[in-house]
């Protein structure tokens, strides 16, 4: 056995490696060992995740398995709802200001409720522009926007990748998306 950085291992048996024995020079014992290892590997379960038939969610829902997306992975956004089913967002535009990719577009309107002045009339995130940095999540004073570990879903057109408010709220249900652990 020679380290990969050792030059011309055949002609320089000294150094930090002892000279090869006769059985090592014949290669046969290590070949037999090697084919034993590949045979064992052949009968072990394999690591492949059949994405997208088996999404990372199916794994995340079960015990942590190979191929699971890290629960702290920054994926698609959600708009969080409060106890009465209304969006928490007060349309302060802080996330829009914090966004380095300029992918958030918000149009505020007066809120019909007493506890806040404004709510978003339009809340759009262009998922193609988004760099999933999570700054919007940090900037939000109301914990209204969050990133989930959900990987983005492929679409056939660019317009489908611009998520509107309904889509972002629909994305929300905790039942589907495991919550990212908070700091």
């Amino acid at each position, binding site marked *: 056995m020679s380290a990969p950085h050792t030059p011309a291992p*055949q002609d320089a048996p000294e150094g930090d490696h002892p000279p090869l024995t006769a059985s090592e020079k014949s290669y046969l014992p290590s*070949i037999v060992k*090697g*084919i034993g*290892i*590949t*045979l064992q*590997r*052949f009968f*072990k379960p*394999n*690591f*492949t995740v*059949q994405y997208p038939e088996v999404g990372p969610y199916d794994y995340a829902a079960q015990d942590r398995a190979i191929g699971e997306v890290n629960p702290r992975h920054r994926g698609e956004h959600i708009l969080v709802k409060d106890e009465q089913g209304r969006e928490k967002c007060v349309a302060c535009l802080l996330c829009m200001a914090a966004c380095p990719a300029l992918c958030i577009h918000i149009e505020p309107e007066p809120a019909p409720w007493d506890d806040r002045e404004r709510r978003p009339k339009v809340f759009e995130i262009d998922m193609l522009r988004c760099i999933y940095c999570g700054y919007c999540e940090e900037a939000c004073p109301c914990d209204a926007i969050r990133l989930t570990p959900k990987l983005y879903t492929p679409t056939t057109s660019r317009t489908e990748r611009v998520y509107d408010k309904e889509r972002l709220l629909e994305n929300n249900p905790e039942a589907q998306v495991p919550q990212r652990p908070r700091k």
Partner: protein
Amino acid sequence: MESVLQLLFTDPVIGLIKGLLVIGVVLQIVPLLIYLERKLSAYMQGRLGPNRVNFVVPYAVPGLGGLRLVPGSLQPLADAIKLAFKEEIIPKDADKLLWYLGPFLAFFPIATALAFIPFGINHWDALGSGVIVDLRVCSVPISVLLLFAISSLGVYGIAAGGWGSGSKYPLMAAVRASAQMISYEVSMGIAVLAAMATVGSVDLQQFVVHQATQDFVDLGFLTLPNWLVFSQPLAALIFLVAMFAENNRLPFDMPECEPELVGGFHTEYSGLKFALFFLGEYAAMILMCSLFVTIFLGGWGSFWDTDAWGVFGWVAVDPHATDGINAIKSHLWFMAKVMAILCFQIWIRWTLPRFRYDQLMNIGWKVLVPLALGNLVLTAIAGYFLNPIGVGQ
């Protein structure tokens, strides 16, 4: 009825049928082999391999609807269709004649050499007509020599393709391939010489008859047949190693050493010409494995005799019978052994890393050739003392 069959089964007709059968079966084994190679390698590496292209049971079938039959099994077909529609690119500096000749020279000698492999029993009473058929395409008494002579021509295809590409990497690969195949043919030839001395014949069918009709040793619980792998283990090992080099398979795949030579001798080839190189390579694998099986693993002979217990006895081949069932059994035994050796080749490929070129030459000339020569001398001496009258007869 019998007279009609006898009139029909003339030598040219039977030869044609056997030839079409052999080439057809080999061409069908190649996709199977490609599928096997990809699947086995995948499982050895903890992957799944191709599992998308396959037949699906229609959803109308209750219970089984949507069931995928052998996932990925149509992948070789998809690959072939893809290759057929690829653009053929001819390099500007290509030597046109050699460029076009290369893929054909790589495939046809291998396909020709397959004619000498006995793929079944040597005397089959064809459909009970009284015509005795030898189950190999070309029944010549010097088939070992002819086979080696013709299969060695396969390297010209690689050399012509590499040279004709007008590109440096294929040229390097062609030079390497020629040197490697010539080197390993020496030790392989000498290993087979020892086997010839043991059998006392240069006829492949005689090799099988020798191995199928006698017992090597009775261990009490098990009787080993007289396979040359037991009586000539060293020759078998040398042949096995040289076989990998001859097929350019992975511990010795210098001619297509990807990290150094891009894609090796077929770097510049695309489309169906590349497919023909691919086909030739896998056909050569089949050829060499059937040769190994024929010479060292008893060819179409069975491991146990017909007097073995129960179903084992029924499965065994009787080397003296002439009926059709026996012929089919002998062919199945041959195919099973060949498939086992092919799987072994794939297994080795995905186990061992590539040797350096100087290591390759050292193994070939400094290890295998002296070992093979020593084995030949030992065989000669042992043959003189054990059987002074006529070895193997």
